[in-house]
């Protein structure tokens, strides 16, 4: 999947656990795990907004694009 999720890095930088983030953004731990492990197929804007709000970051800090990591568009 060319879209990469840098949630691990952001959590490490902010010294936050995934469980704490789940409680703060009102998203289930299961869904956040799906996102963190790159298994998510899509992300809602509301989810992106909530995560960026808690982690105080931009969507571009959370998501990346690696063309070599998947099929070419």
């Amino acid at each position, binding site marked *: 999947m060319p879209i990469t999720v840098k949630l691990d890095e952001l959590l490490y930088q902010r010294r936050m656990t995934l469980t704490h983030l789940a409680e703060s953004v009102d*998203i289930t731990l299961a869904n956040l795990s*799906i*996102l963190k492990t790159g298994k998510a*197929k*899509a*992300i*809602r804007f509301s*989810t992106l907004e909530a995560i960026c709000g808690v982690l105080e970051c931009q969507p571009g800090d959370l998501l990346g694009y690696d063309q070599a990591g998947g099929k070419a568009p």
Partner: protein
Amino acid sequence: MATSKPGDPLLGAAKVLLILFTIAVIFGMVMLGIGTSVLLTFGRYEFMTRIAAVDAPAIAFWGLVGGLLLLEGMLYLGLRFIRELSGIVNSVGAGAPFHPRNAGRLSRMGWIMIIAEGVALPLAALLAWFAPYLEKAGKHVEIDFGLDAESILLILILFILARVFREGARMNDELEGTV
């Protein structure tokens, strides 16, 4: 996220009705099976006497046996239809109706209806053949023969719904990975 729906009166009523229909159909199949067995064994002589009394040919016996077997087939189709519908109702109760299995169930229900209409044709033809002899025996028979609009519509609805559920399952699958 799939959630169950406890206490849904419609689903509850549907489950009860389907159980009752299942019992009725199985009972009918068993009784028909017993009746056919008796006819083929102990009841054969008496039946042959009765058909001779109304000047029906001897082959009427096998016509009746064939008719009973076709009826048994119809009841079996009815049982399969109820079982497929039960599967759908259970999946709705489990909060996960949009699954490819339900698309398959609806499709099979459509085919069951088509086969049932096909089985009904020789049954009606047999009944039409028996009618004059039954009239002679003092039993009036009315035959409603042919493919009616309701059956055609039901078959169409089932196949269209199968497509709807197939698409719903695909959309649900996409949603599964959405956070």
